C-alpha cells in the first residue's frame, strides 16, 4: 500500500499532464488549421468539444478515479480524513477541482475548459509529490474526527470549486477579449454561467467551513476569532466572493467586471492556503507541511 499510493498519484499526474497537452494541442490545432489551410477564421463548433475533447475529458475522469483511489488508500493508512497536512490536502484539493469540473460539465457545455481546469490540479499534484508523505500521528489539536473531516473537508471543497470558477473566469475573459471567436473555449456567456454556478455551489460550503472553524477555535483556542492569518485571509476570501455574488447578475459595467473578482478570489484562496501555511506564522501552522 505504501508504494501503491504514490504510484496512483504519479499516474493521476501523468493523466492530467496528458489531458493538458492534448487539450492545448487540440486547441492550437483548431485555431491554426484554417490559417495553415489558407481559409478564414475557424468556425465556431456546434458542440462543446474540440476534436480530441473526449480524450481530454476521459483523461480528467481517469485522473479523478486514480486520485480518489489514492485518497482512500491514504485514509486507510492514516485512519483519518486525508487532508490533515499539505501533502494530503493538495491531493484532495486537486480531486475537488476535477470532481467539480466533471459535475458541472454534465449540466453545462464546458468540456473545452478541461485544459484550464487541469493546470491547477496538475500543479497541486506535482507540488504534493515534493512534500513529505510519511504517516505521522496527529497533534492533539487535530484529534477531532468531526472537525478535521468536515471543517477541513469543506474548506477543501470550497477551494476546489473556487479554482473551477477561476478557470471559467479565465475562459470568459479570453473569449470576451477575442470577441467569442475562439472555438476551443466555451462561449463567454457559458463560462460566465459556469463561474456563477460554481460560486453559488461553493459559497455555502466556504461559509460552513469558516463557521465550523470558528466553532473549533472556540473549543481549542479559547476564542472563535483570534486574528490568525488564515482566519483573516479566509474572511477576506469570503468577502470577495460575497462581492462577486452581488455583482454577477448585473448587465452593466459592474457586472462585466465580475470575472476579475473570481481571479482575485482564487488569489485569496491560494493566499489562505499557501501563504498562511508556509510564509506567515500563525496558529494554523502547527501541522507544518
Amino acid at each position: 500500500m505504501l508504494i501503491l499510493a504514490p504510484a496512483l498519484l504519479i499516474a493521476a499526474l501523468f493523466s492530467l499532464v496528458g489531458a493538458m497537452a492534448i487539450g492545448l494541442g487540440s486547441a492550437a490545432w483548431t485555431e491554426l488549421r484554417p490559417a495553415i489551410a489558407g481559409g478564414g477564421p475557424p468556425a465556431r463548433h456546434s458542440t462543446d468539444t474540440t476534436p480530441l475533447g473526449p480524450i481530454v475529458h476521459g483523461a480528467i475522469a481517469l485522473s479523478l478515479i486514480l486520485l480518489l483511489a489514492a485518497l482512500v488508500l491514504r485514509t486507510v493508512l492514516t485512519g483519518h480524513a486525508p487532508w490533515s497536512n499539505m501533502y494530503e490536502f493538495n491531493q484532495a484539493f486537486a480531486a475537488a477541482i476535477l470532481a467539480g469540473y466533471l459535475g458541472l460539465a454534465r449540466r453545462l457545455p464546458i468540456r473545452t475548459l478541461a485544459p484550464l481546469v487541469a493546470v491547477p490540479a496538475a500543479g497541486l499534484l506535482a507540488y504534493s509529490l515534493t512534500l513529505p508523505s510519511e504517516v505521522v500521528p496527529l497533534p492533539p489539536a487535530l484529534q477531532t474526527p468531526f472537525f478535521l473531516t468536515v471543517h477541513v473537508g469543506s474548506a477543501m471543497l470550497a477551494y476546489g470549486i473556487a479554482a473551477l470558477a477561476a478557470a471559467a473566469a479565465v475562459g470568459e475573459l479570453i473569449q470576451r477579449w477575442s470577441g467569442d471567436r475562439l472555438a476551443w473555449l466555451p462561449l463567454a456567456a457559458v463560462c460566465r454561467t459556469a463561474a456563477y454556478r460554481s460560486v453559488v455551489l461553493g459559497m455555502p460550503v466556504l461559509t460552513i467551513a469558516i463557521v465550523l472553524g470558528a466553532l473549533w477555535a472556540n473549543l481549542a483556542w479559547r476564542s472563535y476569532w483570534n486574528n490568525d492569518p488564515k482566519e483573516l485571509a479566509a474572511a477576506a476570501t469570503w468577502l470577495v466572493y460575497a462581492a462577486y455574488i452581488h455583482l454577477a447578475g448585473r448587465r452593466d459595467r459592474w457586472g462585466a467586471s465580475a470575472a476579475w473578482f473570481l481571479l482575485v478570489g482564487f488569489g485569496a484562496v491560494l493566499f489562505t492556503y499557501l501563504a498562511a501555511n508556509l510564509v506567515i506564522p500563525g496558529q494554523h501552522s502547527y501541522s507544518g507541511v
Partner: protein
Amino acid sequence: MLRPSSLRVQPSLDRLARRADRALRVLADARLGVALLVAAGVANLAAAARAEWRWALDSPAYLALVGTILITGVAAVAVRIPPVWREWRRPGPLVHSRDVLVGEVPLGGELTASARARIVAVLASAGYRLAEAATARGWGVAGTRRGWSRFAAIASHLSLVLLVVGGALGTAFAEETRFGLFPGEQSHLAAPRPGLTTGVRFDGLDAEFDSRGRPLRFDTRVTFIRDGQVARSQVLQVNAPGDFDGYLVHAWTYGPAVELRVEDLAGQALFDGWVALGGEATDSRAPFVELPSLATTIGVSLAEAETNQARLIAADQHGVSDTVILGPGERRRLGPTQVTLRGFAAYVSFLSRRDPGVGLLFAGGFLLAGSQAVAFYLPRCRLDLRTADSRLILRVRGERFDDVRTELRRVSGIVARAAAARDERA
C-alpha cells in the same frame, strides 16, 4: 370611518418619507455593498499578510466599515421584503425578458372551468404557489415554485446582524481568567466576587509524546466544584474544554514542577509545596521561592531532564550564595536552609472564559450558511400561463443563470396532460 381629509399627509412628512425611501434604496444598492465588502476584504487580507497592520481591524474606522456593511444589509432586506412578501401572497405575472423561456401547449378547443381547475391542481401538486387571473384577453395563472427561497436570501442578510451583535456582546461582556494550578490545588473560575461559588481543582496531567518528542496526548484531570461540593470530574483535552456553569475551562499551558520542602537549619518548615520549573514566570507560578525571614530566594530550574535532576540556587542581597543539584527524594543543605526535593509533577495553567455573545454569533453563522444553501441550491422558479387563441402560452423564469429548460418541458408536459384529459372526456 376615515374621511378623505384624515388621509391627507403633511407635505413635509411626505417629503421626509420620500427622502427616507431614497436613502434606503441608496443604502440597499448592491454596488455600495460590493464596494464595502471589497474594502473589508482588503483590510482583512492586509492584516493577514502583515501582523503589524492587524491594529487596523480594531480601529474605529474598521468598526464603522463593518457597521455600514450591516446597515446596507438591513437596508437591502427592508427594500426587498415588501415585493417578496407580495409575491409570496399572490404570485404576479411574468414580464417578458431575455431570461424568460416561452413554450406553448396547443388546446383542442376552449378551456373549460374544470380544465382550468385541473391545470391549477397539477401545477399546485408540482410545487407551485398559484394565483389565477381572468382578464378580458383570457384566463391566466401565475405561480412561484420554492418562493420561500427568497426569504432565505433575506435571512442570510439578517444573519449578519446576529453575527455582529453576538461579536459585540462578546467584546463588551466576555470575561476571561487565567490561573495556574499544581496538582491538588483549586481556584475560582473567575475573579472572586460575591455569589461566585464555582471552582475547579486540578487533579493531574497525563501527557504522551512520541519518540521524536511530538505531543500525542494532553489529558488534564479536573474536578469542578460548586458551593464547596464536588459537582463532577472531567478530563480536559485540547479540543474538549470543560463546560461548567457557563464557563468554558481550557487547560491552556503545561509545564514541569517540583515538590519542594524548605526548612531552616533548626528544622522549622519555611515552605512546603510546588514550584514551577522553567526560566520564566508563567501565569503567576514563578520558578522560585521567596523566604523573607531569611532574606533569601531559592530559584529552581531543570538541571538534567534525562535523570530528573533539578538545580536549586539560593540568593541573598549579595548575590548567589549556594547551588545544589537534587534528584527526587534527596535532601541537601542550600545556604541557610535544608531543601528536600520530594518529586516531579506538572503544573497546568487554566483559562476560563465566559462569552455571552457566542451563542448568538454561532446561531448567526449557521443561519448564514443554511440560508445561503437554501437560496442557492433551491432557487425559486416563476411561471406564467395564459390562454391565447387555441393554445396556452407558458413562460418560465428561474433565478440568475438558472437553466429552466427542463422545468419548462416538465411543466409543459403536465399542463398538456391536464388539458388533454379534458379533451378525452369531451
